[in-house]
């Protein structure tokens, strides 16, 4: 038995297929390198937001320190490339170092949940920012670090906007697929259980702490990957990337799009990147517009943009068919939109 109207599922599948086809052909119909690069940015931030959503949406653990992990990946790769190492070594090392940092973050932050978790992650993120800012002999301080080349996997240059876009799209699709698998998996279901009833989960035989720890590592892994995409996209990293604002913006992407959904963080990333990069070209007070958008989302769709639109769609669909909308509940391992 499905709790979603059959028509809705069909429409959703068609919409996803069209979206994927559009993404795949984007460089051909966009043409302009600037907008192709904006699309790459949306995708890399979508990976970052999806990573954060693992903790925020599925684990109920709101982190304000993920920018620190994001920056650790970027700085590690930049430092190793600067030291003369190849891209493969730099990338693998960046992921390993970020995973190690995630483990440290997790061990310290998982001593608590709720506001305690948030404050500890915030403090840890600020420590990373402080190191990036103050340890100038390593990080070049405020001036940041530059990298001169992008990797060339299998001899394919990623210097052009379309090539980089397709690489980002590939990474994004892999990230999305792993998220779908994770959310549907027993471990994903367990993580949601620890969010909703940690005491009960413990009594049912689950190791709540370890489940959260693994979730943190999973989140840290994809944060590292998005951090690598960031450094290759910008070919530059500086302390503001590790700052609270980056964490807060990514959290806004997750919350505005819809926590505990797979499409929500992607939609949130699109809104934020477009506002920052495109709308800001036309409207000087783009921050005000962004604020108004968030206020409207919170007012009319407190569950986030994607679940809110889904709810309105269901309501409209049911009204059209003269039926009362059915509430949705997860089955044995289902996941949100």
């Amino acid at each position: 038995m499905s709790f979603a109207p059959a028509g809705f599922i069909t429409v959703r599948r068609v919409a996803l297929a069209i979206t994927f086809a559009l993404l795949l052909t984007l460089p051909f119909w966009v043409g302009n390198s600037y907008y192709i690069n904006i699309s790459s940015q949306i995708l890399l931030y979508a990976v970052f937001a999806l990573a954060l959503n693992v903790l925020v949406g599925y684990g109920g653990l709101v982190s304000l320190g993920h920018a620190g992990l994001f920056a650790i990946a970027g700085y590690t790769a930049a430092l190793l490339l600067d030291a003369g190492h190849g891209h493969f070594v730099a990338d693998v090392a960046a992921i390993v170092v970020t995973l190690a940092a995630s483990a440290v973050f997790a061990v310290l932050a998982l001593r608590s949940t709720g506001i305690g978790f948030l404050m500890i992650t915030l403090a840890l993120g600020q420590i990373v920012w402080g190191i990036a800012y103050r340890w100038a002999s390593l990080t070049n301080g405020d001036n940041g670090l530059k990298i001169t080349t992008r990797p060339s996997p299998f001899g394919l240059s990623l210097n052009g906007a379309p090539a980089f876009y397709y690489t980002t799209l590939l990474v994004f699709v892999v990230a999305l697929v792993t998220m779908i698998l994770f959310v549907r998996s027993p471990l994903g279901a367990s993580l949601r259980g620890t969010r909703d009833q940690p005491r009960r989960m413990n009594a049912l035989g689950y190791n709540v702490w370890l489940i959260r720890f693994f979730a943190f590592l999973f989140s840290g892994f994809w944060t590292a990957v998005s951090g690598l995409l960031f450094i290759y996209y910008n070919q530059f990293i500086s302390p503001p990337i590790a700052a609270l604002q980056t964490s807060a913006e990514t959290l806004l992407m997750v919350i505005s799009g819809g926590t505990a959904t797979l499409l929500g963080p992607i939609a949130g990333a699109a809104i934020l990147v477009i506002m920052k990069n495109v709308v800001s070209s036309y409207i000087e007070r783009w921050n005000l517009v962004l604020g108004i958008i968030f206020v409207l989302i919170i007012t009319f769709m407190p569950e986030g943009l994607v679940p809110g639109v889904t709810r309105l769609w269901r309501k409209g669909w049911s009204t059209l068919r003269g039926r009362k909308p059915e509430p949705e509940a997860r089955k044995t391992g289902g996941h949100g939109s």
Partner: protein
Amino acid sequence: MTALSVTNLCKAFGGLRVTRDVNLRVEAGERRLIIGPNGAGKTTLFNQIAGELTPDSGTIEMFGQDITKLASRKRTHLGMARTYQIITLFGRDTILRNVTLALLGLSPLRWNPVIDLEREQHLVDRAHEALASVGLSHIAERPLAQTSYGERRRVEIAMALAQSPKLLLLDEPYAGLSIDERRDVQQLLMKIPRDVTIVMIEHNMDVALEFAERITLLHFGEVIVEGTRAEVVDNPRTREVYLGE
């Protein structure tokens, strides 16, 4: 064989001693009722037995194994299951999903980050069996939010039974139920096989006395009377402390 042995158990919250040298021996297959007025320390005792609270002193053994310092989740893996006085379920999920989570808790599959849980048919089938045993299989796919209080009580019991426990701790399973629902739950508990030892806290004396073989009366964290139904009911201290005579 002794299923549960509690020896000289003590627990205090600051200056308030909530468990005072409690001794308890529950034989395998026994139906034990723990009664006492509000604030007697029944749930605190349960929480120590289940591992959710650490006792200050004393020991707890389950089937001869010392579990005093064992984490709550590990006790579950040894065969202990419990229900809660205040229903503690996964409100965003379906009934079936709630029971599936109970089954998953004891399965190594719970660490799997790749397979699709919905396709684990053996878990789903076992969840349906557990729900059938409490008469809820026909509404297995119903969201928990759309169920009655009595149905939720039965879901709690189904989750505990799904874990095939050797020792089942029931914390006020009749609380908040209508007379009909109480009778249904009573019949359900009566059907639990004898290889499951049951320790129950209950205020509702009518149904609880019918169920119990031995009764322990707690008062201010202390065991003051223990014995068969007749012994406890006839004891003047029971009437004095619990029945208000």
